[in-house]
């Protein structure tokens, strides 16, 4: 989604100009565009009357923010303790291999998938677990992970 003036204005309208709303406003931006476009960060900081450096500090400190656009499907693999002791690491590596992502997290070149790690999705009874977009998939094996990617690729 492009950063339209309208979309931003809708977010900013919610917040009185005070520094305490910086994180909340940026969370709304992240939810809206699925990353923090630079223009949007500047607009938020201007509106709230905080220096841009503070915006950078916050965006780079908290995991919830991303400065890069995200892929069409969000793949969040749980590496919480319960999933770890039930083989979550191998499942995670399988996702990484199949998606061809070099670093620990990242987005595929065709912008189809973004892979990230999360800690405990609250479904340890189904460990190892991954969340694809809104849906949770449990009792994963490497084979099941491969099947899931094939399924989502078609969507």
């Amino acid at each position, binding site marked *: 989604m492009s950063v339209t003036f309208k979309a931003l204005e809708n977010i900013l309208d919610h917040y009185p100009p005070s520094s305490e*709303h910086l994180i909340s406003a940026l969370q709304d931006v992240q939810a809206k565009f699925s990353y923090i476009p630079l223009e949007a960060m500047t607009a938020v900081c201007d509106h709230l009357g905080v220096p841009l450096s503070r915006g950078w500090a*916050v965006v780079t400190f908290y995991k919830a923010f991303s400065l890069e656009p995200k892929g069409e499907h969000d793949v969040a693999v749980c590496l919480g303790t319960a999933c770890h002791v039930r083989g979550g690491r191998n499942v995670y590596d399988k996702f990484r291999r199949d998606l061809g992502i070099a670093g620990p997290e990242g987005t595929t070149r065709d912008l189809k998938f973004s892979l990230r790690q999360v800690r405990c999705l609250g479904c340890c009874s189904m460990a190892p677990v991954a969340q694809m977009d809104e849906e949770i998939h449990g009792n994963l094996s490497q084979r099941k992970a491969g099947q899931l990617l094939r399924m989502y690729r078609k969507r």
Partner: protein
Amino acid sequence: MQITSIDDLQRAKGAGLAQLYPDKPKILVGMATCGLAAGAQRVYDLLQKKVQQAPWDGVVEKTGCIGFCYKEPLVDIIIPGKPRITYQEMTPEVAESLWEELAAGRIPEARVMARLDVDDMILNGGPRRLFKGKLTGFLAKAPRYEDLDFFKLQRHIAMRNCGFIDPDNLLHYVARGGYFALYTALTAMTPEEVIEAVTTAGLRGRGGGGFPTGVKWASCRKAQGRPKYVLCNADEGDPGAYMDRSLIEGDPHSILEGLLIGAYAIGSSEGYIYVRAEYPLAVKTLQRAILAAREAGLLGQNILGTGFSFDLKLNLGGGAFVCGESTALMASIEGKPGEPRAKYVHTADKGLWNRPSNLNNVETWANVPVIIAKGADWYRDIGTEGSKGTKIFSLVGQVKNVGLVEVPMGVTIKDLVMRVGGGVPENREFKAIQIGGPSGGCIPKQHWDLPIDFDSLREAGAIMGSGGLIVMDNSTCMVDVAKFFLDFLIDESCGKCIPCRLGLKRMRELLEEFSTGKGSLADLDELESLSEAVKDGSLCALGGSAPNPVLTTLRYFRDEYEAHILDHKCPAAVCKELITYTINQELCNGCTACAQECPQGAITGSKKKPHTLNTSQCIKCGACFEVCKFEAVTVA
């Protein structure tokens, strides 16, 4: 409905009870996060559709997590004059036949998990028997909740309403005695008496440290400066735990009521709940609860006509573990990066916006109304000498009955793992528990008679923590576990102080050496002394407790470290550099499953002939091991 007086509260209770136990059949679907993950939404939608299509005099409602997460999705049937029946592992298809039986006036018999004869209702005049006379037929034979090993040792106090009420329905909460404790505190007790009760009850913080709650409140009450803030820590950073999330998703008003009582005791009129943004359902549930309480007049001005005023804001965390630490959390609410500060000035005096502030954990707050309603002595009777009441654990990992359990303090590790948890699956061997998350430690089987309370755990080198309890068996490598927690902590260290930022990295390097079969026994000593240095030198408790997982594994599993260093072996067959996959020629029947799955093409062989694995091509991903149904792929 406005609730501005005790009469209103009584009326709300009556109305709520009529909804909880209506004079017609009711179906309850467990719809907390793990229920939803297991497919509860589809079950719920189907039942709703059925009810709307057919003229049937009954209701379908949702409820929270009762703890039996491994049996999800769960559905309950409540029929007037009958025990409540819980059905397990529901699918839309089974739910359909269940509904048809019910609509035809029969009680479904398939997939019964247990029946509940008595609803404890600890805050509303005590136990309520759900039927009169004797049971007959299959109902008489169905196990009762208290017959199930999983339930036998449990006692639900903080979880008193979870799985019993619709979390979005304020009347349901009131029906089970909710907000009556608030009324008692506001009208029959002085703030000092409230603090006294909480102190005498022996309540200690459930967020990890176990600090006496009453003492904390008293110092904030005494502090100069206004306004004062009460805060709820719902950041739940332990990477293997979900107790707080479930409490919020199952019973948000218990936390609101706790905060209200605390605010009255401390002299505060404003509060914040800091909750993880990654918990969307918990966030929504809290938003709805706050709105409902505000509309009813239970938040705002002149609450219950007593002149006491209080309101609450919700603040969404940005996903940083360190923000669970009190000073970092306050910085985060102020819109800053969540870096801790040194605590020579206490947050009770100068916390949020430099004003006196009192922070407690979700579960701590949920216990408060019970103490006020039942009295300090009632509460003191539960638990051990130094640790009163109950504790919720998320009992997870290599254990059969995975779920949330609330047990009296002092239960032994053995009882929790073997009785409540049903032991480890597939005839493997129980090895250790990890308790307390990244600040906690591993406790081995030889100490499984240890009672779980704040002080015993600390002596053993772990901590109670917020309630993550991970069971490990002989397929878990302790060097790998230490690495796992260090990775997490290095990732989450805010980087402000050097021991934590650099010390942890060096510790991690040493562990890497061990897990690749390098390193020497002298390095073990370096790891130990470095751990002590990080412990002493770090600014906040993240760094201060970060070495615990390393130190406890060293203390109890030194032989395993030595096996890595001296024999270049990983006894649990986890550390990739030290293991090899092979195919046992006798057991392999040539089904080709492994060859199809191998990403490296390292496995060759023709159909129905034993396969061979080329070790030099193998990247040790374990895919072949996973798919082989004949145990022909071995790893050592």
